[in-house]
């Protein structure tokens, strides 16, 4: 068999579009199974030594997360009746680099629980929504959650209300920070069960990688010591070492071509020099995230697929879910120094499923954080009291107390799938390649907003119990207009009229096209989707590999 690098005119077994949480895992799994794999990634192949503690470059100037100023404008509107406007901050945020957002995320790695896969059956339909059961159960995914723990490297300890797990964590929990202590003590005082947050960050040496040095630059940054278990440092090197996998970074896919039989035949892209190329493939796996995966399918429309590839259901780009949030900050008498070490060290999951008697659907978790991800510029810019001064002598006097003596408790909550929340192609705005821009249409469901308020109220009680001397915070009462959780836009299901991919991630309409990333999710989970995206990718690789070996692709 041919070895990497491959010729574009010779079909490889799989082209994988995207190298993030899902794409990196599928690349490693399929190449390890012996298949020839080309991964096409639009961002650069940065290495850990390239990552810097540079808030101005990484946070204020789009660093890894490209947007308008790097030639990738996105537009936003709340409803179809509006004309979407170009947003300054990309409404759908994700990292552009090998490893995708797994390189720059906060590394919270919560499993979904049994009920997440069957809540429609538990609770019944919710009017006006596409609330549905998954075609798979927690039991189906459990072996793959465990595989993520052990192959990626996760630190934690089973929580008091965790779902069943077949094996413990490979690494002990991370050391607790002061915000975690404040949440834990307050939570116990109020009768809850706080426990160490599970994270894809190493607390001890594991698989040749060193433990975290607690530098504090996690969210929005890459880890320069490789302690964050991104696919960049876990899966991609293993994929490349097989000799069966070629990573083509700096390459932007324009469309997936289909042949006369309606099968995916090649992936067209601009290479790192801007020259158009087309890689032939026996099968295509799209792992471009909940924004770019539906966009690519819509861009791949043709005479045979006039509404976009794999879109006979009309569900491509629909059911966009973000996860809701609440944010509350407290000032404390003693130094907290939340800017050191990882984002979150304690979590409370006692409100995983809210009582239906409240009159709305929802659930989530509350974790301990820094007010502003520990970033100095962010803390000075927007970290202070919301009703306080934002310039002048009084503002200046608060800078240090806010930066050194504050902690926040953040709620992470459910989002309902709605037909009206969508990713579509903007008819008026183009990106630097001349492709229609990503257009987001999104408004949180009233139950989602009620859930956020519930979590805000519980967080406020926790802040009081923790002994905060001054408290401020908010929820997005007018609805969210930006998110980094991009979920549900090519949902999984058994019914081809209501979903885009089947339970093995195969597109209902195109037998050799597979979609696996946040777009596959049927429901939103409780606010931390990456663990489930990774587990789905390991599971998808088993199913796709088996089908290929049986000649059923």
């Amino acid at each position: 068999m041919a070895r990497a690098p491959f010729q574009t005119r010779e079909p490889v077994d799989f082209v994988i579009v995207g190298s993030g949480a899902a794409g990196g895992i599928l690349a490693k799994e399929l190449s390890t199974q012996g298949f020839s794999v080309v991964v096409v990634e639009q961002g650069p192949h940065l290495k850990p030594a390239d990552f810097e503690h540079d808030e101005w470059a990484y946070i204020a100037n789009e660093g890894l997360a490209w947007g308008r100023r790097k030639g990738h404008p996105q537009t936003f509107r709340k409803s179809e009746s509006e004309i979407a406007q170009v947003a300054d901050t990309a409404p759908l945020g994700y990292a552009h680099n090998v490893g995708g957002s797994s390189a720059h995320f906060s590394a919270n790695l919560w499993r979904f629980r049994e009920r997440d896969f069957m809540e429609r059956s538990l609770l019944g339909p919710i009017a006006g929504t596409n609330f549905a059961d998954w075609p798979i159960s927690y039991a189906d995914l459990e072996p793959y959650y465990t595989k993520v723990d052990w192959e990626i490297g996760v630190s934690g300890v089973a929580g008091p209300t965790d779902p069943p797990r077949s094996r413990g964590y490979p690494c002990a929990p991370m050391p607790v920070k002061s915000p975690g202590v404040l949440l834990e003590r307050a939570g116990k005082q109020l009768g809850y069960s706080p426990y160490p947050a599970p994270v894809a960050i190493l607390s001890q040496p594991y698989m040749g990688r060193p433990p975290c040095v607690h530098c504090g630059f996690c969210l929005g940054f890459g880890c320069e010591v490789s302690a964050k278990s991104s696919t960049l440092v876990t899966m991609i090197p293993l994929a490349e070492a097989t000799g069966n996998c070629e990573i083509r970074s700096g390459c932007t896919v324009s469309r997936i071509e289909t042949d006369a039989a309606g099968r995916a035949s090649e992936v067209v892209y601009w290479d790192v020099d801007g020259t158009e190329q087309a890689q032939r493939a026996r099968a295509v796996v799209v792992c471009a995230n909940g924004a770019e995966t539906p966009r690519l399918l819509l861009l791949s429309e043709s005479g045979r697929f006039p509404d976009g590839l794999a879109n006979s259901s009309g569900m491509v780009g629909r059911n966009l879910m973000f996860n809701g949030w609440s944010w509350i900050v407290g000032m404390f008498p003693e130094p907290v120094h939340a800017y050191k070490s990882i984002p979150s060290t304690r979590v409370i999951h006692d409100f995983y499923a809210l009582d239906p008697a409240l009159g709305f659907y929802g659930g989530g978790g509350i974790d301990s954080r820094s007010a502003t991800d520990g970033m100095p510029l962010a803390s000075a810019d927007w970290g202070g009291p919301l009703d306080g001064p934002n310039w002048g002598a009084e503002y200046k006097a608060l800078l240090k107390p806010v930066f050194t003596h504050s902690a926040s408790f953040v709620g992470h909550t459910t989002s309902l799938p709605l037909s009206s929340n969508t990713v579509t192609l903007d008819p008026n705005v183009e990106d630097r390649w001349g492709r229609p821009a990503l257009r987001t249409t999104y408004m949180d469901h009233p139950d989602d907003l009620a859930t956020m308020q519930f979590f805000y109220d519980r967080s406020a009680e926790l802040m009081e119990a923790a002994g905060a001397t001054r408290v401020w915070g908010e929820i997005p009462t007018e609805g969210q207009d930006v998110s980094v959780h991009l979920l549900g836009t090519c949902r999984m299901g058994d019914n081809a009229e209501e979903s885009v991919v089947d339970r093995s991630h195969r597109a209902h309409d195109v037998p050799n096209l597979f979609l696996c990333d946040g777009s596959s999710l049927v429901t939103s989970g409780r606010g931390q989707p990456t663990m489930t995206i990774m587990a789905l990718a390991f599971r998808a690789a088993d199913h796709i590999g088996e089908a290929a070996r049986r000649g059923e692709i």
Partner: protein
Amino acid sequence: MSSLDASASAAFAGATFVTVSPERQDALLTDIESSDFFATVRFLTLAGMFSLPEHGGNRDEIGWRLLGFEPRHGWQPPFGSYDADYAERGE
């Protein structure tokens, strides 16, 4: 900037913004604190004060010292007083 000077001149007899007292500067800025101009200048001032010194501001890390941010490449527990207390006394 020229309109700030014009406001200063009109209010304080021929002065420019930089020549009036801090109290009077605050009064002039309060008049425009809701403007896009003020928001831009405010953010750029903060960026210059609190970003990596390699970008040209935050000289001698003066902004970071004002915040209490210590730019080390690594830390070890305890990080703050509450986790120090937790390590000592337990839950």
